[in-house]
């Protein structure tokens, strides 16, 4: 039993819902109690979808338990088919129904519906959302893909590929798919089927006819890609094209399959990021200490962008999905770090509080953590909230994605010249701590708290009483003298946390009972090495 306040992933049946909602012509009959229908709002509110997700919940109640929950399930499946006439149906159980052991798969088969019925076996007490999406997609592909298909002869036609992995509620999936489809087209490749998002069950039948697969999101697409590789000998491109370097690598991997000339393709300028980053205004970005956390794919890719393409210093790298822990560990080692693999947001908060980075790249949870710790933050991975489904075109993949990432990673920071002025005129009334970056809305604690209150619960949450940070406490044993405190206050707020921590560590290591101005500057010199 783990005590969780917030979770990075929902249960596995929510993963299945993301697959079903992304697709067309598929219906999900889910054996579940009434409260589980909350999942609809993930799609209708957070993602602003204009249609209900294609799911029928049996909504059994306590009084049904002694009776016939199986009958209820059959009725629901029957009614759902009659009403929605889907091309295929997936059936499964949520956590509560799993305990009832009604066997939705068997019950649905017994109905003899005239469409494929695909049972899902998603153990709710072991697995989570991404795994559920991956497993659902795999089950659909295995059940529906026509194994007799092969690609037509290559001569005289453009090559085709499938894009695997995008789902409903994915971080920027809508725009990533558009961007990569365009990029592939420029490389002479047509996208045959994008799945699960956008595909119908009938589309999945034809997966085997493509020349190769592109795995955009390994979390949801890799299992299916592996099966397709085995079944159809379709090669797969497995480089998530996030960031400029990764997109170039992706182009080379595609070219290796198609025989195109990657070097010629990449010779001209494709993205603005490289020049923006080299231009002198970006000098101030050098060595900014950044903490990256998210799903494995986005975290690993963002770490590379941060270090290689913006010149930041990576001080922490982590992910919440253990299925990909190995990849994250390998990536972290490349930067001389130990990966933080946890799905407990308290651990992540503790790590951020300890490291005092100057920028956090994370999920909506890290946005809240960073806000509390007054550290700039950009959201780079699911789970995200409504504001991270922007109206404008905003991919993070491909060359335009690289441009988007430049803006995303730089925007939260104090601008270069402003940073200097803050350092020079610390007592300037307009540059006081509360002011924050001048191009961002003022962030005083009270407005911050207000912004964090969700609109689902307008006015419900006077948050002040809880607002005290529960970061690991500063070293209580060491006392700051008044002049040292005052001197510390002159350090710009966005590096002050780090300075305080370093000084305290320095003092503790030397067994000092108090910190004076001298200690402060001794510590500064010590850590400046």
């Amino acid at each position, binding site marked *: *039993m783990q*005590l969780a306040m917030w*979770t990075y*992933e929902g249960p596995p049946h929510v993963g299945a819902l993301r697959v079903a909602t992304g697709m067309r012509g598929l219906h999900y009959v889910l054996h579940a109690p009434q409260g589980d229908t909350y999942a609809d709002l993930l799609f209708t509110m957070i993602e602003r979808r204009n249609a209900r997700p294609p799911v*029928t919940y049996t909504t059994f109640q306590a009084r049904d338990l002694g009776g*016939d929950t199986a009958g209820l399930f059959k*009725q629901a499946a029957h009614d759902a088919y009659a009403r929605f006439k889907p091309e295929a149906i997936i059936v499964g159980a949520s956590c509560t129904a799993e305990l009832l052991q009604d066997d939705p798969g068997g019950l649905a088969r017994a109905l003899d519906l005239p469409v494929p019925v695909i049972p899902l076996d998603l153990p709710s*007490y072991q697995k989570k959302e991404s795994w559920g999406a991956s497993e659902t997609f795999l089950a659909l592909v295995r059940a529906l893909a026509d194994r007799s298909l092969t690609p037509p002869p290559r001569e005289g036609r453009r090559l085709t590929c499938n894009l695997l992995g995008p789902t409903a509620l994915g971080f920027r999936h809508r725009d990533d798919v558009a961007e990569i489809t365009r990029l592939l087209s420029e490389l002479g490749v047509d996208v045959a089927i994008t799945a699960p998002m956008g595909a119908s069950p009938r589309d999945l039948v034809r997966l085997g006819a493509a020349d190769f697969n592109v795995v955009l999101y390994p979390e949801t697409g890799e299992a299916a890609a592996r099966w397709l590789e085995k079944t159809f000998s379709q090669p797969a491109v497995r480089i998530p094209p996030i960031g400029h370097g990764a997109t170039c690598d992706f182009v080379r991997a595609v070219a290796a399959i198609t025989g195109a000339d990657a070097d010629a393709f990449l010779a001209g300028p494709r993205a603005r990021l490289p020049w923006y980053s080299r231009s002198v205004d970006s000098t101030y970005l050098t060595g900014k200490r950044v903490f990256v956390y998210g799903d494995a794919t986005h975290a690993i890719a963002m770490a590379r962008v941060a270090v290689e393409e913006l010149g930041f210093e990576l001080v922490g790298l982590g992910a919440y999905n253990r299925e990909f822990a190995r990849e994250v560990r390998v990536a972290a080692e490349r930067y001389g770090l130990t990966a933080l693999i946890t799905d407990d947001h308290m651990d992540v908060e503790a790590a951020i509080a300890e490291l005092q980075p100057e920028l956090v790249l994370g999920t909506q949870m890290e946005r809240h953590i960073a806000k509390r710790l007054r550290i700039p933050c950009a959201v780079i991975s699911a789970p995200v909230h409504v504001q991270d489904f922007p109206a404008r075109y905003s991919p993070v993949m491909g060359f335009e994605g690289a441009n988007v990432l430049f803006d995303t990673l730089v925007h939260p920071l104090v601008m270069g010249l402003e940073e200097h002025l803050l350092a020079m005129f610390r007592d300037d009334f307009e540059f006081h701590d509360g002011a924050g970056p001048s191009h961002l809305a003022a962030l005083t604690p009270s407005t911050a708290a207000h912004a964090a209150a969700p609109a689902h619960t307008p006015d419900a949450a006077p948050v002040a009483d809880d607002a005290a940070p529960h970061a690991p406490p500063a070293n209580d044993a060491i006392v700051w003298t008044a002049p040292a405190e005052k001197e510390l206050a002159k350090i710009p707020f966005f590096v002050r946390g780090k300075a305080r921590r370093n000084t305290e560590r320095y003092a503790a290591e030397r067994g000092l009972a108090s910190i004076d101005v001298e200690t402060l500057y001794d510590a500064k010199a010590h850590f400046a090495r």
Partner: protein
Amino acid sequence: MEVAAAPLSLESQAGSVAEAPARDDGCAVAPAARPVLRERGQREVFCGLTGIIWLHRKIQDAFFIIVGSRTCAHLMQSAAGVMAFAEPRFATAIIEDRDLAGLADANDELDKVVDRLLARRPDVKAVFLVGSCPSEVIKLDLSRAAQRLSARHMPNVRVLAYSGSGIETTFTQGEDACLTALVRDMPVAPADAPPSLLVLGALPDVVEDQFKRTFDALGIGPVAFLPARRARDLPAVGPNTRLLLAQPFLADTVRALEDRGATRIDALFPFGAEGTSAWFEAAAAEFGIAPAHVETVLAPGRDRARRALEPARRQLEGKSIFFFPDSQLEPPLARFLSRELGMRPIEVGTPYLHGTHLARDLALLPAETRLSEGQDVERQLDRCRAAAPDLVVCGLGLANPLEAEGLTTKWAIELVFSPIHGFEQAADLAGLFARPLARRGLLKV
């Protein structure tokens, strides 16, 4: 029992139109006969766990531990939005495979979870163990666990238990279950104690304070509120305790209090000028306050509310409205909208119709208004589309899809999370219904 788990047939489960009075679930007085459409099918409602979102803000020294699954945790954060800026005073103890397989003793695990929490949160004075569907299905006895943990942590921390599971409770029924658990802890008031008033249902602090002032002015007292801002501020209850319901979804709480001798004051619910007036008047009559004095005290607030309602009335008069079931607030709100704002309720859906407590409100609903209890969401959507109402009150899962179909909607959940009771909030309440229509009129896109 109405339609039993329906046999498999080519027809969808039919709703049954019962001519009989609404089921009164053990209460003695049958409400006026009015046909009620009772349906069973897919429900599109929250479970009782969701009540924690407001209860944990209201009861400031309580912590709620849901003993449930990852689904329960996910529900809470999806419904609450991520309030991670504040560390919330609720969390989910997630049951895992090893708990189910018996590898770990669920009770030991729970003890550890509570111990760790209390070590970290010394400000917490009461812990609620909240049952969920999984904990109910595996028959984890949380009441016993609460007793055991209370014995261990009293006098510092009281541990209580209730169920907010989706197989037993719908949305606001979670509050009913929580308050019922608190009733068990209330001290006994002696039989000769002077009459006292107990107001039931979590109210925003601002409303509670207004109500307190009005009761004072009326000369009614002592007055206590359940829940109070501190979990362990529990008034004594006995035969001279009079109950006044601020919320219509508290059937079990009332029953528990009646078992302790308390009596319920029958009244309209305090929404709008009329409802609020009637609510105070019923209490005043019970306490023998002179009608002239009551009128003096209530008239200014009532007149202010009426004046404040005028602009909304101009916007809403004659407009039709359709309620999907959500919080059980639907019948009294429909009464307010039809009588004070001139709206036309077409269908008033409620997850559960407690006819006795609602008798006065139901009696004031227009005769042509359809009352429905329970839900078959697909059939209800068919009815709603056919009726093409000017405004639909529905849950978050349905709102955007219905907007996309051209209907105008109001999120029901906002009605639970906003101060809407009493004279001073009457216009705000009306505004919640007027705003979506005004917005629709404004937009040129």
